[in-house]
């Protein structure tokens, strides 16, 4: 009951924090798509490079987010951005590389070699093959990677409250420091709901972007 009345009384604050939260994740994952998809396509040219890149991306994900924030403070302090929005975005950008690069790489390399041969034999240039055949076929798998990145990083963004990035994590960190279960529970529930909603919305988007000929 206490929690419900807390939510009802602080509705606009919660929505404001949620908006901050979404903004951090959206910018970071958006940038991650712009970098990760081309990287994933580029590394299909060499198995050795692909292994190295995917290895590095895997290592990045194993760094605890709180440690990553800590590592960035001295680096970004040189431009006066040691804490706040920028390091949060950078961290999420880095964490998102693994699912997006890996899924793009897997999707492109899994395109049926017969399709590639047909496309080549018909006289498509490498860019035409990529844009007309390989990417459309890879889209569902790439989008699945984006979904993973978003859901995973909605959690990471909550922790970014500790470096002053804002977002729903603010409720959680305050709930802990003020021993206030109302804020803590509200923050936790809001982050979970946001993750579920994002997952659902991206699944819809994934289905829309899947070429009709590939749907079951």
């Amino acid at each position, binding site marked *: 009951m206490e929690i419900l009345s807390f939510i009802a009384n602080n509705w606009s604050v919660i929505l404001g924090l949620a908006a901050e939260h979404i903004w951090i994740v959206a910018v970071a994952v958006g940038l991650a798509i712009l970098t990760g998809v081309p990287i994933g396509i580029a590394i299909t040219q060499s198995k050795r490079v692909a292994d190295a890149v995917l290895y590095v991306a895997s290592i990045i994900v194993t760094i605890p987010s709180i440690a990553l924030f800590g590592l960035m403070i001295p680096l970004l302090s040189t431009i006066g951005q040691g804490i706040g929005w920028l390091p949060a975005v950078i961290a999420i950008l880095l964490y998102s590389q693994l699912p997006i690069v890996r899924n793009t790489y897997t999707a492109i390399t899994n395109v049926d070699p017969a399709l590639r041969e047909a496309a080549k*034999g*018909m*006289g*498509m240039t490498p860019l035409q093959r990529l844009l007309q055949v390989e990417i*459309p076929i890879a889209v569902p798998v790439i989008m699945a990677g984006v979904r993973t990145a978003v859901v995973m990083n909605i959690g990471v963004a909550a922790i970014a409250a500790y470096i002053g990035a804002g977002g729903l994590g603010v409720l959680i960190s305050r709930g802990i420091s003020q021993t206030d279960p109302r804020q803590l529970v509200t923050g936790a529930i809001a982050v979970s709901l946001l993750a579920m909603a994002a997952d659902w919305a991206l699944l819809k988007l994934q289905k829309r972007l899947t*070429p009709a*000929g*590939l749907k079951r």
Partner: protein
Amino acid sequence: MIRLEDLTKTFATPNGLVVAADKVNMEVPTGEICILLGPSGCGKTTALKMINRLIAPTSGRILINGEDTSKLNDIELRRNIGYVIQQIGLFPNMTIEENICVVPKLVGWDMKKAKSRAAELLDLVGLDPRHFLRRYPKELSGGQQQRVGVIRALAADPPVMLMDEPFGAIDPINREIIQDEFLKMQAALKKTIMFVSHDIDEAVKMGDKIAIFRAGKIEQYDSPDRILAHPANAFVADFVGADRTLKRLRLVTAEEVARADAASAARSASVADVRQSLASSGERIAVVIDGDHHPVGFVTADELQGASGRIGDFAHPLPASVPVRADLRAVVSEMFAHDTMWLACTDDNGRYAGVVTQPAVTAALRATYGGANAGAA
């Protein structure tokens, strides 16, 4: 015309240099189908793929209609060569129409022309454009997909087609049908075609010429009939099979050996007249035909001895009849099935067109042998 001159491909492998094609020389005249035939690993596919440079030749020249293709860039070259592969390779993200329009679009046709071409080609292979243009490949059966694969290669009307075991993945019944359709199309389109196969029966059926490959070299390049009748060496003889003479049956149609003037008689004819005409021609049998000239039975000279009346009363039912277009393999099969030495032939309208006999069939096979021997001598 496609001409290969000393075409060679060597691959470097961990076990040393492998020669996949070894100074291949051949020429496919304009409008003909040449089958590249051989066991797997013999270099036939390598030879084919060097023509559209999916595999880069190590040395040698490829000329298409007299032009050295090494002067063209890969993309330009491939857009002028139709390419069909066994796995079909229709793009699953595109509709049938979009698939067919790929090359026309690449070479800059306007969309209207490309689309009407797509509809026209679908019609050509018996797929209703209204039904199929907007479909996706996965909605089609294997046979339908391969028909689309073939017409996609024909879309921009290339003079030359390369086909890599195009019908290899289709079930035997549909394969026969598609092969027949394709031959009918080819009779009208007259493309110059290189066609890889590992199936001697397909090669004999589809090829104007057959090149038999072994270990990167051509063992024999000749017409199907010459290859079957006169294999150049033991390898070729072995590859075409011990039943190679039987395979030649497919190369001759009933029409070529049927006797169109074999005796026939109307049902209403009088026994006496027919008996007399049989006696004068020395024949033992007359085919009985009805008012529409369809064969309906036969009479024998022996049974007409001393009889009178109408021929219709003495007729036995025909064991079977064959269309004159049928090849001799089908004819002989019918003969064996009905335990008979002769069969009546019918034309496209079902009318009597003569008689094929077993001696005539064997004589036809012998004649080709004899003729070929005479040529060699």
